[in-house]
């Protein structure tokens, strides 16, 4: 599909796609390329970069390069799952609130507002305190934090889409609400949501990294970019790469996805707008 890759014509699309590919490659192919196991002690603790260990070692003498190569898949996968769950919930709530209006809309939206008023990290802390640290808690916690914002956005774009003639035509021929939402409204709000999805995923990555950093997410000895920054920051003056390398990877991933999402949203939006004007 040529249409799908139109965003690559934009410079931001190209750069974003490059950064994203690089981060995904490191996260998923990295473990195969790592010279050492992530938890194997290979030399003196906190050695700087040398011929043998390109990025040096951490406080337990583990190879930083190997840990960076192993440490991406968890954060990428967890953030992806959390974002998908958040989108599933937010999409449903937003579509229903935006399309049904009446009493459904204010009831759902006030609930959303309450959720939005909770500070994300505080919420995660309370959740972890109540249920204990586990990967599932982390993913669900991040999804709960993300869902209300998504619901709000979806509701707004749905409101606009549901007064269109093609939606009325569907109502007049007696389509079920679920069919109208799926066939008529959803395909038309996707461009707006794609740009947002990139941002949400970024936020999930950062939130998971932050949770790991605060030791309420993944626990040592997992090799994870967020956790690595947290554990190694005390030794930043001895081996700066032990913090910089995972930080750079998080930056590549988040900036890449954002540039890409932005470019996709812009190219899709443009072709749609052109269609309406003539």
């Amino acid at each position, binding site marked *: 599909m040529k249409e799908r890759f139109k965003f690559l014509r934009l410079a931001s699309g190209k750069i974003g796609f490059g950064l994203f590919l690089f981060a995904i490659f490191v996260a998923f192919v990295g473990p195969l390329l790592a010279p050492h196991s992530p938890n194997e002690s290979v030399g003196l603790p906190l050695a700087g970069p040398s011929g043998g260990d390109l990025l040096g070692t951490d406080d337990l003498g583990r190879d930083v390069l190997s840990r960076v190569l192993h440490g991406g898949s968890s954060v990428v996968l967890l953030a992806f799952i959390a974002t998908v769950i958040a989108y599933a919930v937010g999409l449903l709530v937003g579509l229903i609130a935006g399309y049904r209006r009446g009493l459904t809309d204010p009831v759902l939206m006030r609930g959303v507002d309450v959720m939005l008023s909770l500070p994300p990290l505080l919420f995660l802390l309370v959740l972890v305190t109540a249920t204990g640290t586990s990967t599932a808690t982390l993913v669900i916690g991040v999804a709960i934090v993300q869902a209300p914002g998504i619901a709000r956005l979806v509701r707004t774009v749905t409101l606009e889409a549901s007064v*269109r*003639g*093609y939606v*009325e*035509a*569907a*109502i*007049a*021929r*007696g*389509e079920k609400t679920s069919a109208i939402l799926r*066939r*008529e409204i959803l*395909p*038309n709000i996707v461009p707006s949501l794609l740009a947002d999805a990139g941002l949400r995923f970024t936020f999930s990555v950062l939130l998971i990294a932050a949770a790991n950093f605060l030791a309420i997410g993944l626990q040592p000895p997992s090799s994870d970019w967020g956790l690595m920054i947290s554990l190694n920051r005390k030794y930043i003056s001895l081996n700066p790469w032990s913090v910089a390398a995972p930080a750079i990877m998080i930056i590549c991933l988040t900036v890449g996805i954002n540039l890409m999402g932005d470019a996709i949203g812009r190219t899709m939006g443009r*072709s*749609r707008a*052109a*269609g*309406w004007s*003539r």
Partner: protein
Amino acid sequence: MTDSRPDEGVIAEGVRITLDNGDDIVEGVSLRVQPGQALGLVGESGSGKTTTALALLGYTAPGVSVSEGRIDIAGEEMTGRSERTMRKLRGRVISYVPQDPATSLNPAQRIGSGLRVMLATHREGASGSDIEGRIRQVLEDVHLPTDKEFLGRFPHQLSGGQQQRVTIGNAVSCEPPIVVLDEPTTGLDVVTQARVIEAVDRLRREHGLGLVYVSHDLAVVSQVADRVAVMYAGRIVEEGPTESVLGEPRHPYTRGLIDAIPDPHTTRRLRGIPGISVGVGERPEGCSFAPRCSLAIDACRAAMPTLDEVAVGHGVRCIRWKEVGALATDTAPIPPRHLEGEPLLTVEDLCIGYGSGRQAKQVVHEVKVELQRGECVALIGESGSGKTTTARCIAGLHAQASGSVTFDGEVLPKRAQDRTRDARRRIQYIFQNPYDSLNPRHNVHDQIMRPIRILLGLRGAEAEKRFEDLLDRVRLPRQIGKRFPTELSGGERQRVAIARALAPEPEVLICDEITSALDVSVQAAVLELLEELREELGLAMLFITHDLGVVSSIADRGVVLQHGRICETAPIRDLLDRPTADYTRELLGAAPRLLRRPGDESEPAHLGAELPR
């Protein structure tokens, strides 16, 4: 006509406007407009008229440039100068009135401050009281109030007609010798349109303004312009004095456009121009119009004809112009039909409201409509008259109503979803705007198949057969199924929308202003199609429109609505030839007609005497 120096008006010579990829949008266009004159630039969508008009202002869209020719306005060259210089010239030597005032006026700027900015920019050194005086004068010229309260209003606090007069006021505020108006009355009601046209015409007469009036509506142009240039596929195909060009057209395209214009006082069948307009980059060798022309011969396809003078000041780009006069116009009136029996659809005492509590507002009051099998009833009124609301209520799209809608002996529930599948199948609705009523994310095949599956319950080969029959019926090629709405022209889209409405074999078709977004020739073709469908399928139609000309060519009876109340119901000829309600007369008087200005002595005798004013 005023005697004027050659450097006062518009002089455009051999203008060619080209896309960056080398395709011509406009070619060999030469125009002359003197102050105090009005030139009508007419053509259908894609003819290059707006591109030409904007080029007069020294503006071309990104990726487009004037590659040949020269444009002088009041002695100033408008091509190839810096953006900075151009900005100074625009407003001072030439200004622009865009099509949609609602989007062209800054919603955050008060009327007075908009005018003040305009004047302060172009009249350096003018004192505050000079500017205030000029603002008052400008508003008086366009017949708007001049008090402080009005100057302090925001655009959304004005009606559409007032907004358009404000943009005209803005355009003339710095007294440029030339003003370009781009479809300034499209989207306005006939009565409002008549007032705006009157204001423009007075500016020309009293202040000697030169006008370039761009429009697709020949009837409107015939009321303001003393010369007309007809554009087709980027070239001027006919140009000359209005009476001569529109009264005795010598180009088959002009002739086709005129035959496509509906008129409230004749009942002839309209004829569309066959085929579709050629796009930029796909223009054929020779005459661009040849593929659609009934007079075309081999010589037409060999070379582009030149613009030759065939009468005084009347140029035509056609080698067979002598034959055009002999083309027969179908003037045979449509005989009135007699339909009797039980009405198929009865609307009784329909009252419709919006909102709830304190904001509740009733917009339709006790409307009664009857529709027989095979009959076409027109619901006529201006915007805000409640005609669309009534139609939506009948279709089950607006439930806040009292009164009853009875269809084939049964009272219909208010909401479409509460109606039986059969009731939903038998009444179909076609929406006003084909750009909005087709889902841009589904292809034509899927859009038409949906009602076939849902309402007719057909599947597989049977459904495909029905789909193909429908495309044949609305005269669309089969391959169109794979295309998406954005890839279609306005006329093609409306045909797809009609096919979708016909898909479940309905008995009543509700058509909501379905031709108002289309060019006249396309409109004529769509009306022709509807007429044919009605005869062959025995469809009953409820036709919602503000256009009395369209009503005349298609409807059997008319119902006139004003402020949500019926003010007249009558057989169509009685309604248009012998109206009894004042409001109907007002609508008729304001309807633009080819070469007949409103209130002219040349109005038909039976009507002229009754006209108010």
